[in-house]
């Protein structure tokens, strides 16, 4: 069996940043395994710009952002196994993968899971109707158009107003398709404001909130969809349905962290994020196995993925050097009123300042976040606006953290 200090599963933005950070922390025996023939993961199909503003201070397209990190990987001569599919990770950190040469087994001292996420599909939505051609998840259509050069349709309805749906509305319009509507089940869009402005308003594409697709029509090719307004329980309202002719339906209805390896390994999961439960250095509850990026929780900005992956990379490097000695006493975190989840789910209180990441349950105006442990306030943060689509970060200072006892709870109140 081969041996490596750190094995990274996935060569997207998370895997690359984790590899570079681990290497720079002094553990140079790092390898990346990826199922694709090139590094970059989903960034290769995200040809729009807006990446890197926070992390790199300039605005790049997805492939350019990926290239910045791919170069850093190359400069360090970090080996990458391309077209290599990891099939299992064991709790004692044996990584099994297969590629054209056969089966590969590596005993790692630390493993970083960076498999990203995948799209929720039609089957998960239970939309009535036939099963014609012309129904794609938005990301699949994005890959077909941007990487492979196949236009997927001419007259389009998009279900879901998350960022991928909005980006694809613009992309399809620029390529000459007519986007008839973007329908959103919720009463608000999950996308970034700048995407609503530059992808919908610029092209005069209507956004219908509290609206969903209730029926799909057509035999060989999609001929149209019936949409209807929904009530506060997201049930279609009788009498509000109407037919929209279209040959293409794009589904942008949520992302699911791709955690099959994690679950088979027996790593405890957070049912809300769909990812592993981790501590402040991104280590799961299985010693020596780390997780970062969209496999841990779905991010809205790749910049934050890179930040998180750097923490995982450093954490894994420190773990390799220090082993079990680096495990300290843990505080648990908890999402309180108005907060849907908090990552990390547990943290050590003696390792320096700790950033908490969270999403709110619904759109709010001006809010105040309060982080408490027992009856002690650890941090207060005010925001002019909070929305589920925009991840919040609150820093806990070491000075306050070191004496904290009890569960670290984040809650918000609307001002």
């Amino acid at each position, binding site marked *: 069996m081969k041996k490596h200090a750190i094995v990274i599963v996935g060569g997207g933005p998370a895997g690359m940043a984790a590899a570079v950070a681990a290497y720079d922390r002094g553990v140079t025996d790092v390898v990346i395994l990826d199922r694709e023939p090139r590094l970059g993961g989903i960034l290769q199909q995200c040809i729009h710009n807006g990446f890197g503003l926070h992390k790199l201070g300039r605005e790049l*397209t*997805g*492939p350019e952002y990926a290239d910045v990190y791919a170069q850093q990987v190359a400069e360090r001569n970090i080996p990458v196994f391309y077209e290599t599919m990891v099939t299992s990770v064991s709790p004692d950190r044996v990584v099994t993968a297969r590629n054209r040469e056969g089966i590969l087994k590596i005993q790692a001292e630390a493993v970083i899971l960076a498999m990203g996420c995948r799209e929720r599909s039609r089957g998960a939505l239970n939309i009535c109707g036939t099963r014609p051609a012309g129904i794609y998840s938005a990301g699949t259509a994005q890959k077909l158009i941007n*990487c492979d050069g196949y236009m997927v349709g001419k007259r389009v309805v998009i279900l879901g107003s998350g960022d991928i749906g909005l980006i694809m509305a613009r992309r399809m319009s620029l390529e000459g398709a007519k986007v008839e509507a973007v329908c959103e089940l919720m009463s608000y869009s999950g996308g970034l404001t700048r995407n609503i402005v530059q992808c919908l308003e*610029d092209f005069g594409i209507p956004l219908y909130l509290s609206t969903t697709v209730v029926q799909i029509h057509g035999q060989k090719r999609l001929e149209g969809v019936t949409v209807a307004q929904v009530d506060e329980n997201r049930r279609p309202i009788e009498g509000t349905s109407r037919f929209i002719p279209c040959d293409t339906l794009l589904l942008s209805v949520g992302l699911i962290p791709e955690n099959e390896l994690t679950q088979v390994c027996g790593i405890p999961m957070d049912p809300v994020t769909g990812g592993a439960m981790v501590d402040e250095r991104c280590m799961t509850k299985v010693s020596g196995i780390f997780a970062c990026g969209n496999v841990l929780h779905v991010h809205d900005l790749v910049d934050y993925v890179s930040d998180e992956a750097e923490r995982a990379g450093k954490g894994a490097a420190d773990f390799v050097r220090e082993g079990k000695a680096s495990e300290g006493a843990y505080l648990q975190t908890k999402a309180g009123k108005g907060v849907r989840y908090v990552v990390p789910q547990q943290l050590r209180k003696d390792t320096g300042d700790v950033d908490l990441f969270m999403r709110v349950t619904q759109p709010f105006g001006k809010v105040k976040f309060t982080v408490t442990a027992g009856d002690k306030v650890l941090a207060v943060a005010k925001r*002019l606006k909070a929305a589920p689509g925009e991840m919040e970060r609150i820093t806990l200072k070491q000075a306050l953290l070191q004496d904290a006892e009890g569960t670290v709870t984040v809650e918000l109140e609307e001002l």
Partner: protein
Amino acid sequence: MERKITCIICPRGCPMTAVIEGDSVKVSGHSCPKGEEYAINECTNPVRTVTATVRVDNRRDVMVSVKTENPVPKGSMADVMAQLRKITVQAPIHIGDVVLEDVFGTKIVATKEIL
């Protein structure tokens, strides 16, 4: 003329109203000077970076992603796309390679490595 503009400078997303009379633009609804500036630019000279793809001649089923090096007038996006549809490129291509010169005062550059 009156225009509704959603500010995209920060996450607050102020709903602004711009009243355009001749050369003057009066903005209301903003919370900061940056928002006002954005609204005025949106009314007088809105620009966008266009990102798209160009077919690679000597590679099967491969597109290279491209962008306008600088933003172009918002109204010219369809023209930019029309020009890009007419051309193809030859691999190898590197990030920053110029794919098309002089498009609305800027260049079209590759954003992906195609080896």
